[in-house]
């Protein structure tokens, strides 16, 4: 197992390197001089040149990259160019809680919606439940999250006036009920697309397992159907489902940009979009890098869980 873990981590290094180079270059290639932008319009050429030297903007690109990545590894993502003196890491972390709680909540809804329907669709194959589940998954794939959100707002907030159309209540500061009132629509719109995918995958992996020989064996032994589906099939389908949940968490974090903007939730998505208008590239860079790294780590964890559950994977 130790060897397997080391091997997995080692194969990740090139990916991590490429991600960091891409993110670094992206922002580095932006038009405009960051030094001139920080100093404002009435800066003299000497001031700009001085700041250039101070920030190390005259050094070769690879030196700038290594300096930047070194600082990032220590949790220092530079200072904002829009809000003078504000540290980017502080900005990102102060906006992280709404995004994280929203992502977790939307994943909970997704799992509760998708796994039972997926199992049902697999058992009642070709029946009404299966048909409804297919429509549901088609819709989920075709509707972008923000359209789902707009539809939900139109229905649940404008028409029926059940829930507020926008706004944010913090889970820890305002309590659970206000949080649920405000965050259910965003969580639903964020989770819907993924719920469709998760349902399809649950259905597919359940079908695969249900068709296997040992299930036939269990059936012929007279094991109850309930126990076959719940105990034997679901456990083996779980590996696929864990992967899908992991991917869903990442897509919830990434999709947050759109949904947070729609529901005016002060998370990192909103911060990122607002930073585009302010040309605050350091913030965009930090958020992209963080989420990409989180993605890599989550995928690593999934791989390790796989290795832990299924010894065959460790050997290849």
């Amino acid at each position, binding site marked *: 197992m130790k060897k397997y873990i080391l091997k997995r981590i080692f194969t990740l290094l*090139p*990916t*991590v*390197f*490429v*991600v960091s*180079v*891409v*993110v670094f270059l*992206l*922002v580095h*290639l*932006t*038009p405009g001089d960051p030094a001139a932008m920080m100093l404002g319009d009435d800066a003299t050429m000497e001031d700009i040149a001085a700041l250039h030297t101070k920030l190390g903007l005259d050094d070769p690109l690879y030196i700038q990259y290594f300096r930047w990545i070194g600082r990032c590894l220590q949790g220092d993502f530079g200072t904002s160019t829009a809000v003078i003196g504000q540290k980017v890491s502080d900005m990102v972390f102060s906006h992280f809680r709404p995004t994280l709680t929203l992502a977790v909540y939307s994943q909970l809804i997704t799992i509760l919606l998708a796994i039972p329907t997926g199992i049902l669709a697999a058992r009642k194959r070709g029946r009404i439940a299966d048909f409804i589940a297919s429509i549901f998954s*088609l*819709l989920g*794939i*075709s*509707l*972008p*999250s*923000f*359209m789902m959100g*707009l*539809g939900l*707002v*139109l229905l649940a907030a*404008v028409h029926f006036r059940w829930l507020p*159309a926008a706004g944010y209540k913090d889970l820890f500061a305002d309590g659970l009920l206000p949080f649920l009132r405000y965050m259910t629509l965003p969580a639903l719109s964020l989770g819907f697309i993924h719920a469709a995918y998760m349902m399809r995958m649950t259905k597919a992996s359940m079908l695969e397992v249900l068709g296997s020989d040992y299930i036939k064996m269990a059936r012929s032994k007279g094991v109850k159907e309930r126990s076959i589906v719940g105990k034997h099939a679901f456990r083996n389908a779980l590996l696929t489902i864990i992967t899908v949940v992991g991917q869903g968490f*990442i*897509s919830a*974090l*990434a*999709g947050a*940009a*759109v949904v947070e*903007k*729609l529901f005016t939730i002060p998370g990192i998505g909103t911060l*990122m*979009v607002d*930073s*585009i*208008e302010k*040309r605050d*590239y350091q913030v*965009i*860079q930090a*958020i*992209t890098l963080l*989420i*990409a790294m989180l*993605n*890599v780590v989550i995928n690593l964890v999934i791989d390790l869980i796989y290795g832990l559950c299924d010894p065959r994977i460790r050997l290849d």
Partner: protein
Amino acid sequence: MQGHSSSPSMSRDALRQVRRELIREQRMVNIRRFLHNGLSVVGLVIVLLMLLTALFAPLITGALGVDPYTSLGREMRLQPPSAAHPFGTDNVNRDVFARVLYGARISMTVGFLVGLLSALIGATVGLYATVNPILDNILMRICDGLKAIPNILLAITLMAVLGANMQNVIISLTIVSIPGVARIARSQALLVREQTYVEAMRAAGASRFRILWRHVMPNILSPIIVQMTFTFATAIISEASLSFLGAGIPIPAPSWGGMLKEARSYIYNGWWLVVFPAIFTALSVLGFNLFGDGLRDLIDPLSGR
């Protein structure tokens, strides 16, 4: 090179004739199989309707005497759907129907160009990756790295850097889509290279370049085309999302995402501003996905479902 099974007395021309007929027959079988699948036909119809809408938007709106940019006067602000303005009017007194139809032009152009460009570049990357193991390693690690950044985030970052306009939307979404196509092209090309006829070509002394482009490339074309329809669908979603965030196609251009961004502020007094662009976006995405599913089932009946 399948000639050796036929009798030697057959002339070349006759052989060619037989081959042509076989191909035609296979094509008919394929078309029949595609049409047999109800959902793919629905997809095909939606795709055609959307393309026609995009193509004839100026003609249709011209016949109705409306256009997507002109204000109809202050008394026409936020009017609900009526016979003269079937989709209502918006907050700056414009006809929503005309804007939605013109929106199809933007979405279809972006979808088509992103699909085409990412297929061309992605297939080239994937094909060349199979030539040289070192090149393969480098290209695939770059693809892995790009894929590790969630698509929408990479697109937003690219748009922030490049600046919001249509050309940059196409460039950003193409960059985002390339790794996926490259992976497919590479894995398919690796399969084709194992085939006996490629081995025979190599033994006969054909150059690598010739094998790659004349023999491997045509055989990976189908999965690439299928992927193109899916990329088309995702590009429509991504463009709408970017425009909705204000990082895509700038106003006053009538992109569906941009219209939804404006509609957000009037959601309490103009449901039609949300509903119609949303329906058109969802329908076209659905259409391309269903169409793509149908195509995929054709080339690989075992996949999906």
